[in-house]
């Protein structure tokens, strides 16, 4: 019971300490910041060790039961060891091989996914009829489809880099940036509202769990 109360008071102390930054930088915030950074760095170290070095590598190469060992993991381990060679300045340059592998491999790996979602699906989802058969469609659907088609087309014009934005092309680009800004405005409002729920969560903790003012 004592430790539960103690943990509650520590949590409240740290929450208020982080919020004290709203006033200005102060020793209370600095203390909370250092605790937060220190504990989180330690937490991630432990998590990454047990998830990757033990959970992925060790269990993968030396499995128990009927599972077959996955020796490809040794390649990853070797690349990881190369990274550690940075600790030896004379041969630290070898770590660039690991970096080059990571950047190159992930670029190739994601190419198809990006291309698939940002080009193929985007075009497919934009191609839609502005009217139904015999011009039969509600004004709501017609306006919605026009907004999607014109917005996507002019947005692409804005992101065209090898042509000066002048004349009709420039006018299209301006319409494109107008669409982008309206989208950003809507997104801003939506995201701010969702962030408010985080604030409500912390205030609920302070007023309910800590002070017991809300039942």
């Amino acid at each position: 019971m004592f430790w539960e109360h103690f943990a509650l008071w520590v949590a409240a102390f740290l929450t208020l300490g982080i919020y004290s930054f709203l006033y200005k930088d102060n020793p209370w915030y600095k203390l909370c910041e250092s605790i937060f950074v220190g504990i989180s760095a330690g937490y991630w170290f432990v998590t990454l060790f047990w998830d990757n070095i033990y959970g992925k590598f060790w269990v993968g190469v030396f499995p128990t039961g009927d599972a077959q060992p996955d020796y490809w993991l040794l390649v990853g381990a070797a690349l990881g060891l190369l990274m550690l060679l940075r600790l030896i300045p004379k041969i630290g340059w070898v770590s660039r091989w690991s970096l080059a592998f990571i950047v190159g491999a992930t670029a190739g790996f994601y190419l198809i996914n990006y291309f698939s979602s940002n080009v193929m699906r985007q075009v497919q989802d934009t191609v839609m009829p502005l009217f139904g058969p015999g011009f039969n469609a509600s004004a709501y659907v017609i306006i919605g489809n026009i907004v999607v088609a014109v917005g996507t087309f002019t947005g692409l014009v804005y992101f065209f880099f090898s042509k000066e934005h002048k004349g009709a092309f420039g006018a299209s680009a301006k319409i494109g940036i107008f669409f982008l800004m309206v989208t950003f405005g809507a997104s801003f409002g939506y995201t701010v509202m969702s962030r408010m729920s985080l604030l409500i969560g912390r205030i609920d903790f302070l007023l309910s769990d800590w002070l017991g003012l809300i039942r």
Partner: protein
Amino acid sequence: MTDGGRRTRLTVVVLAACFTISIIAVSVSGQSETVSIAPADTAIAVRPPAPPTSVVAEDYKYDNAKHLVLSWVPSIDDQPGRTLVLGYRIFRSSGGGAFMPAGSALPGASSFRDERLSKDSSYVYYVAAVSATDTVASIKTQAISPKREYLHLDLVWLFVIAFCISSSVIYFIWKARAGKKLFVRKIAGLDAVDEAIGRATEMGRPILFIPGIQDMDDVQTIAGLTILGRVAKQIADYDTRIRMPVSRSLVMTAARETIKAAYQIAGRPDAYSDDMVNYVTDEQFGYVAAVDGIMVREKPATIFLLGAFFAESLILAETGNSIGAIQIAGTARPAQLPFFIAACDFTLIGEELFAASAYLSGEPKQLGSLKGQDVGKGLAMAAILLGVLSVTLGQAFDIGFFNWLADGLSTIFSAAVE
């Protein structure tokens, strides 16, 4: 029911898998008498469920000989309103051995994908419908081995379009290397880079560079570090200080390499120090707390926020704004761009972040790549225009040619990775 002067009510109580029948006889005067028939007396057991039918095992197309797909018609006792079946169990025999459990499926399921198989073995399956009391097996499938396909033929159009765009990228890189001047339009935020670095130099304050919170496998982080190379070279020229707290160890290594190379190109390798870049923590808000602290204590004159940002974007940008720093931000995360636009002086929107490095460096490789990507955008714009027109005219007037065109475009662009 009436029986002379007596009315009889029949009550059936269903308990789990058995029946209890109670007969209550009620007289006109209201007196009643109950006779119960216990389960042991009746011995009416629930019948077993009907098994699933038409069980077929097929090769999972376009894989590395690791999967088989099992499909079946659900039991007739697994229908809306008939919930005798609680689920399905899938049993597999490998190479003629004993049948072992391979997995399970929920009621209503009609397929199961078996994974981690070997192309060198043959497999036989059966599916069992499971009720509260029984497990009833289907007939067994034919023996089948998974096959390996070297080409994913459903993605042929994806390959064709990717090939066209990649070819145009290579072509323009070649042209740029041959000395052709490639035009790149002005990007407003980037013209401010020189001014921002100059301002920090004049004020004698550091420059803060934040490459987002993602690792080196994120293309936005790589774009941020590419711009860092150009910024660091100018910082070395001006002899200004740079401060770069990062949230990933690999980014720290890459950033140090980038700044070191920039200082060497600027002819000032002695001025470089590993302390310019420091790791903080992988934890998102722990990192934010530290960066906010650095901002208010060191009061950098210029802040670059270039990379992948999430919920921390507004906190960082607002803190930077509150200390009066000139801020240049850029990300391809649509949800965070509004915050940067609201709180920063200049914002690189989406692909401008990737174009920035080509624009700043003027390197043939990057300029050619940018030009090639524009060809891709041109193709997409043409497809959208043609597609919307053809599908609209096809539907409105029912003209065969437009319907054919719309169907063709739909087929081409439906080739996408799941």
